[in-house]
């Protein structure tokens, strides 16, 4: 399987990449980790005439803490985030990074590419949606900041203009007493999840002060389960409130049947994942060390 012939351009800076995109036009695509783009090109589902390679732009792969936020360079690899002590300050980020595909994919794939691809089954958008996340976009007219919720518009569709790129991802540190967990069911390691659930809870004693819940692989984009959040927010986390949150999550899920499972099954599964993720999030909010691993077949 070989891609169709294409021209290869190596960008020296992000700004140069933007210029290249605008000059080369619609037939040009950025190359980050290549873990979405290259398989598509090999299958000849994507046939760009020009590739603009970002991999040689220095200073694009980093994790920093600034003003109460974590900052991620666009080419920060999943593996770097998985292995970063700084990123582990927000445990749900580690759950996500460590559970993407397999080692090879994590070593190449990037957080910027992942958000730009907006795959309905991608993990990052689900998790980052439960945190306060901004996407910095660089275009011909400079930088702009877009909240993640408005950045992803539809399946494989983002707010980015053709000649615009993701230049940074910033995630606000959750407040004290906040804990989160991300859990997916995967049939095999190098496969997108069947369904996934991200839960970030801010607790005060037994009461949930704030809740953010997002569902993955059960809609065209990650779904923010606002009714499920409301079922917990301001309430004690009890069997009853959790059951209400689970039910609300199941209701908002809109899964399609495919080789990963029937729609009914996915709906049931996502409910179970929300329930388990809430339990882990509560414990983490209390400061407990909880290891969260995806479920595999």
């Amino acid at each position, binding site marked *: *399987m070989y891609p169709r012939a294409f021209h290869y351009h190596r960008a020296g800076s992000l700004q140069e990449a933007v210029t290249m995109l605008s000059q080369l036009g619609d037939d040009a695509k950025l190359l980050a980790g290549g873990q979405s783009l290259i398989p598509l090109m090999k299958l000849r589902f994507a046939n760009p005439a020009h590739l603009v390679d970002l991999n040689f732009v220095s200073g694009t792969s980093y994790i920093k803490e600034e003003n109460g936020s974590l900052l991620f360079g666009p080419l920060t690899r999943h593996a770097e985030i998985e292995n970063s002590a700084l990123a582990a300050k927000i445990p749900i980020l580690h759950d996500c990074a460590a559970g993407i595909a397999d080692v090879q994919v994590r070593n190449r794939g990037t957080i910027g590419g992942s958000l730009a691809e907006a795959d309905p089954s991608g993990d990052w958008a689900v998790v980052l949606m439960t945190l306060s996340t901004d996407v910095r976009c660089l275009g011909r007219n400079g930088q702009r900041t877009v909240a993640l919720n408005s950045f992803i518009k539809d399946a494989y569709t983002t707010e980015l203009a053709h000649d615009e790129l993701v230049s940074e991802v910033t995630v606000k540190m959750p407040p004290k007493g906040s804990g989160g967990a991300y859990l997916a069911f995967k*049939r*095999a390691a190098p496969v*997108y999840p069947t369904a996934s659930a991200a839960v970030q809870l801010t607790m005060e004693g037994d009461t949930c002060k704030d809740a953010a819940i997002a569902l993955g692989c059960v809609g065209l984009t990650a779904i923010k389960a606002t009714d499920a959040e409301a079922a917990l927010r301001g309430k004690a986390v009890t069997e009853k409130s959790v059951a209400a949150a689970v039910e609300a999550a199941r209701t908002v899920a809109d899964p399609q049947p495919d080789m990963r499972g029937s729609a*009914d*099954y996915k709906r049931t*599964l996502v*409910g179970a994942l929300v329930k388990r993720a809430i339990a882990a999030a509560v414990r983490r909010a209390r400061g407990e060390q909880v290891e969260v691993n995806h479920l595999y*077949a």
Partner: protein
Amino acid sequence: MNQPADEKNWVGKALPRKEENRLLRGRGRFSDDVKLRDMLYLRFVRSPYAHARIVSVDISAAEALPGVVCALTGAEVVAQTQPFIEIGPDPFAKIKDYPLAVSKVRYQGEPVAAVVAQSAALADDAAELVQIEYDALDPVIDAEDALLNKSVLHDEAGTNQVWNGVFEYGEVEKAFKEAAHIVSIDRMHFHRFSSTPLENNVVIGCWDPKDERIYYECNNSFPSFAIQFLAAHLQVHIDRIRVETSDIGGSFGIKITSYPQMAICALASKKAGGRPVKWVETRSEHITSSAHGNERTFRDTRIALDKNGVITAITSRHIDDCGAYPRYEPLGCVIWSQVFAGVYRFKNARIDFSQAVTNKCPVGPNRGYSRMQHLWFLERVVDICAHELGIPPDEMRLRNYIRPEEFPYTTPNGCVYDSGNYPKMLQLAKQRIGWDEWKKKQAAARKEGRLVGIGIGTTLDSGTNNFGQSQIVNPGLPYSGNSQGANCKLDIYGEVVVAVGSCPQGQGHETTAAQVVADVLNIHPDLVTVRTGFDTERNVHTGFSGTYASQFAVSGLSAVHGAAQKLKAEMKRLGAFVLQTKENDIEFGTGAQGPELRAKSTSKSINYWGLANLVNANSAALPEELYEVTLNCRYIWRAPFKVPDKQRKYGNLTLTYASQLHIAVVEVERDTFIPRILDYVAVDDCGTVINPPIVEGQVYGATAHGIGAALMENCVYDAVGNMLTSTFSDYTPITAMNMPKVKYDHIETPSPHSYSGAKGMGEGGAAPVHTISAALQDALFAEGVFIDDSFNNADSLFRALVAKEISQVGKLVKVEKR
């Protein structure tokens, strides 16, 4: 190299594999590593339809692309070749199977044209330019539907039924009349999957116009079968076809049926003026169009039991689905009967067996070939009867197992099980898994509403086929028995060199063959060079040579042993002459100057170089009566088989019967429906073990394949024949992430039928498929679920347990208690 002399009995030792040095350091040589001068690259253009008439094929645009050397269509193939040999009888013998589709396509992914270019990327470009017009036909996806012949795949046959035969033994009606209980099962289904070798198919073909020779470098795993098909198809003398294989990254039988692609590479090379043509299969091509394992449906099963739950008779109707072309089939219509009775004692049975073509990928002899489907069927029967009659599954098995004292045991259809001890394996497996503890834990878990099951799977891995069974499917076939060739020589400088007609794919043949020769000559295995990998020009193959069907330990090593003994006899004769002593006084060992022969109780010796030199380079010193000594000894081993009785379908079909007893503890999670393996034990018996780690490795590998098949791997087609699992994202082969910790143990019941007591092994009988089905059955019987399919995943368990759409005991199983 200078190991202590006279070390005895290398067979049985945990000798590290000789091939590890090469393979683990990335120094293996695989077919795709081979690059020949002026080599071209081939890409197939494949059908998007499952069943369609081909209206037109236009290769002109592809051929016009710069860098493209030629393209090939079905019509051109027809003009130059004969259709492939059909193994089955009429009317299917009449079908025309060509390596490119001619007037019709019969499965999605079937090759319709081939393009040949200077690079693989250009070949991909050219493939996009081939214009093919199709006229869609009604697809036939289910084998039972196929038998209704509403849409017929092969007009020449006029039917979709490839084969039908009734296997009946004993007094079936009487047994049912006298039965205390009769259990009936409406339908069960064994799913399609493949064993997914790491390396896909690769062929380099070169048809040299100068001397009309065809050269192949490829990873076909049964080359002597392939050349028989190719010679007849390409109309060349078989001696004109040279096949070489290198290291092979797994086959599991799937690479046996790559001869159509081999044919195309030769024809393409011929059209390209004799330049070598390489085809490297992509993963999606491999999944959609290399070969799948046989799918089988079991209908109208009835089981007669006595009051103690001892099975006295079984009747059933089995329908095998071989995909679009029979190819290696209908051999599978008889191969299963090697294990007709499984590990059980019942004497009366009638199985009505048919096979149908469908618009799906052709099947190939996938690991556990044709027997695993039947063994799964028997294990389901035993289990559901046990549950229905309230007999614990372990007790049920003990009541029905063939007893240790009954070996060698003749089955109702005349197969002779060489040795075995199933109760002992069960006892060992129970002990290793902690059966009593798990029973307690299971009871406690059930109280909490958890769905925990413990399942037993008992399996046979029959090895070293009697090819005479092919005459049961087609009395006109000229095949019977089994054989393998080997050559053992002292080379000019006295090196011991062995060549075998096998093409290993990780089975460690270099190591085990060296162990056998080392024992015969009383030298260290490091001093034995083993040439594996097939090469027709080594002249050590017979019509059955290759690596398949669990037999190397028997057929391959018996051939090696025979050749080594022949060499030893010649060395003795020569040694007696040189050392002026009696042959019986010659001793074999290793001295200061390497391996040598000594005259007993003297200081006289001659090393291997001396012996070899005398024959090869100093022959004037050789007396005439020793001229027949060549130190280059070819030996053909033959299995002691007779042609089976074709009418009665009776006779010994296999030489050795290795067995596996696995126990799994499985929990189906109440909230996610994910089946989790909580504990797993695999107990193996392959007779005398030649190299323990190699055997253990095969057991782990086969166990992984079986677990993958049971829970993860399924070839799914939609109603119009689109294959929905054409990438690893959808066909999810098992990886280390999905493997439970497997406890391994073994017993040894030496085979009386092989010189070393070893039995063939390696297929593992798909033991985990039966075992996991049994554990799921145990977990879910109380919920009214009948495990009627060999494939179960979270989604299907959800549909059985919650939606209650499938697998309901009440609908599928009836019990008549008299």
